[in-house]
């Protein structure tokens, strides 16, 4: 029995590794998350209004999902100004998150800090110069500055509260947001051009990984109208009940990973390889749903990507990154719309609730994929239970399957563990 450990997996939010156990007849591949997150222990017992400040430890967009859940729990609707601010914040999060992943992809063959003059010339694709990398980081930082302005703080935002947002922006903020919005949109189009021609296109940077087959699993996303929808790669889509999503989707724990698996309860769980109930979330799922982009330039870009790759659904890495490119353009456009001075000015910041329920839910399409929250609280508003579905658990099955296929193929080709680890890291990067 041979054991190979591919550790750590670069760029993964969760500390994770792939452990391979191979003997003559069988190859077992485990994608393992090696650190626990005690979400229930942290959240249960807290006043429910604190959850938007606690849950960003999972991902920044949880802040907004929690705020939506609170709006519903307290039966208040945020004023338009607040809704715009929250939407604008989400777009800034999309932009920063996707740009970070694109930066990781472009620097995947090298150490991004290595002295550029000494670095391998062939490590970067043509036209991706150090200047380009700097511009990507610069615009990611601008998006994060927008997150700071709109959310109060990047990565662990503050401003979304029950019934609205916590403060008005200052005068200088509006101008700065307008500047940032323009810069982000211009760069988004530049980046889209570069990605399309040099990275995603046939023969581009992703060519060595073109043979990687992402498992063709159903995709879960929020269709316009806010209802979670499950698309079948063979065609057709099924609308699910948002409020009862926790009954439709169950979580399974396995002893060899700290991350549970989300799966469709109706299909039962027979291990990640046999289960029919595994699905995935994220940019690729959204792209494969075939729905139009929400804004004109993004839709044009989507058409260009489709021309380049073929019509969705597609289960190649190029499609996963192509999806991100479209969303970057869309995020920039939406940020201009919802982050404009008119959108963020208004008489009222937040509406004060008059009552409080005992249970609530919310769904949000976050950069990494659909997230869904459900809370139950007692009569004092203290959290009794928390259920969360997000990209971590929803993509866990997909990542395990992908790891298994990839490693099995790599072993047949007799790749070294280092080469296997590199391939696995890149393949898992979009998820």
């Amino acid at each position, binding site marked *: 029995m041979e054991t190979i450990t591919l550790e750590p997996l670069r*760029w993964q939010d969760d500390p994770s590794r792939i452990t391979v156990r191979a003997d003559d007849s069988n190859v077992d591949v485990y994608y393992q998350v090696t*650190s626990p*997150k005690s979400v229930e222990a942290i959240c249960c017992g807290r006043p429910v209004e604190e959850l938007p400040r606690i849950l960003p430890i999972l991902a920044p967009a949880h802040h907004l999902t929690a705020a939506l859940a*609170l709006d519903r729990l307290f039966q208040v609707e945020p004023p338009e100004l607040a809704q715009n601010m929250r939407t604008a914040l989400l777009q800034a999060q999309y932009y920063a998150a996707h740009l970070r992943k694109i930066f990781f992809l472009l620097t995947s063959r090298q150490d991004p800090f290595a002295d550029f003059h000494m670095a391998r010339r062939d490590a970067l694709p043509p036209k991706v110069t150090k200047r380009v990398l700097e511009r990507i980081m610069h615009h990611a930082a601008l998006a994060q500055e927008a997150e700071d302005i709109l959310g*109060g703080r990047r990565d662990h935002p503050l*401003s979304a*509260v029950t*019934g609205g947002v916590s403060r008005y922006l200052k005068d200088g903020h509006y101008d700065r947001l307008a500047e940032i919005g323009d810069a982000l949109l211009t760069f988004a189009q530049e980046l889209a051009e570069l990605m399309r021609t040099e990275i995603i296109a046939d023969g581009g940077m992703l060519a060595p990984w073109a043979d990687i087959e992402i498992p063709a699993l159903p995709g879960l996303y929020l269709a316009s109208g806010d209802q979670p929808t499950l698309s079948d790669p063979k065609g057709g889509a099924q609308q699910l009940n948002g409020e009862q999503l926790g009954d439709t989707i169950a979580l399974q724990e396995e002893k060899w990973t700290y991350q549970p698996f989300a799966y469709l309860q109706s299909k039962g769980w027979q291990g990640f390889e046999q289960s029919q109930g595994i699905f995935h979330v994220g940019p690729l799922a959204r792209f494969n749903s075939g729905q139009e982009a929400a804004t004109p330039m993004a839709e044009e870009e989507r058409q260009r990507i489709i021309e380049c790759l073929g019509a969705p659904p597609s289960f190649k890495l190029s499609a996963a990154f192509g999806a991100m490119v479209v969303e970057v353009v869309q995020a920039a456009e939406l940020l201009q719309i919802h982050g404009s001075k008119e959108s963020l000015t208004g008489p009222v910041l937040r509406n004060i609730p008059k009552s409080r329920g005992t249970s609530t839910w919310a769904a949000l399409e976050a950069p990494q994929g659909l997230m869904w929250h459900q809370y139950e609280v007692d009569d004092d508003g203290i959290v009794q239970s928390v259920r969360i579905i997000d990209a971590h658990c929803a993509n866990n099955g997909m990542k395990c399957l992908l790891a298994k296929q990839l490693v099995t193929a790599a072993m047949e080709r007799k790749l070294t563990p280092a080469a296997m680890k590199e391939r696995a890291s890149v393949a898992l990067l979009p998820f």
Partner: protein
Amino acid sequence: MNPKKKKVAIVSASGCRGCEHAILNVHHQVQSFSRWIDVVYWPYLLGSDPDELDALESIDVCFFAGAVTTDAERSMAEKLRSKSDVMVACGACAAFGGMPGLANQKKNGGAASSEDAAAPHENDEALLPKREHRVSSLDQVVAVDYVIPGCQPTQSLLWAGIQALTSGPRSQSKLSFAAARLPSGLAQAVTAGTTPPKGSYFAGDKAVCASCSRVKEEKKFESAVRPYEKYEESGRCLLEQGLVCLGISTREGCGGLCTGVGQPCRGCFGKPEAVYDPGAKMVSAISSTFASEDKTEIENMAAVLKDLTGTFYRYTLATQCALMDKE
């Protein structure tokens, strides 16, 4: 490898990658790192594997983020400590246990049972790192030289910390940049080209109230409120408005980030030196604002406040609560 460059490691245990993202985006300048820093070990960004760590002879500065929750993380912390000249606890999780530390309220630090975490399966499936019985901060596992607190650390303090600890004494511009952002004791050490005293926090010495921009009038209110019940745009101290704001028991350095945005402080910089226990301090602070002399009224006001432990020790339960286990 240029011998003049400092060798730096950046590592996360259990956390959210927020601190590593904070470093990645520091002042748009992360790429300029390569001019004076050799990043020799950064699993998140470079995929550096454990063998590379074993092969390293020494590390100049290690930035360690995240709380220690498994035996593997403990070993990693110990190994990094043995190889590093300077160990920096970066972020509230490494510094105080952070929000993961709240799991210490539960038996076995949140694990369903202490044997459950890595029971070898009949088929000998791959073993997970075993979960410890509690969540620990970095300094509960190894000796820590400096702390950059915060969830996440603010860009200016993080950058000041990185500059101060990795620049040579001749990099005057970097050192003065750092010194400009640090409190006077640290700034003096930094401009003199010496290393700051061990155990220093890259943050201020007083409480957040000292740097909060809100107006403090008289602290007397008739009733405590929960944050969704009301708000004032008066720019007035949040505690005076009846909200629970932990600024009084929290170290300054963030410049009143949360209160500036209308949100009460939740203590992510940990307690200042002068405070013995943040919970006790907050009990004292909040109680002193009750404007009543009647026992029943006072009890009713107190009853509005919920979950004292989870609020007063949000980021520090693992380390700074006087009545919780520290090991």
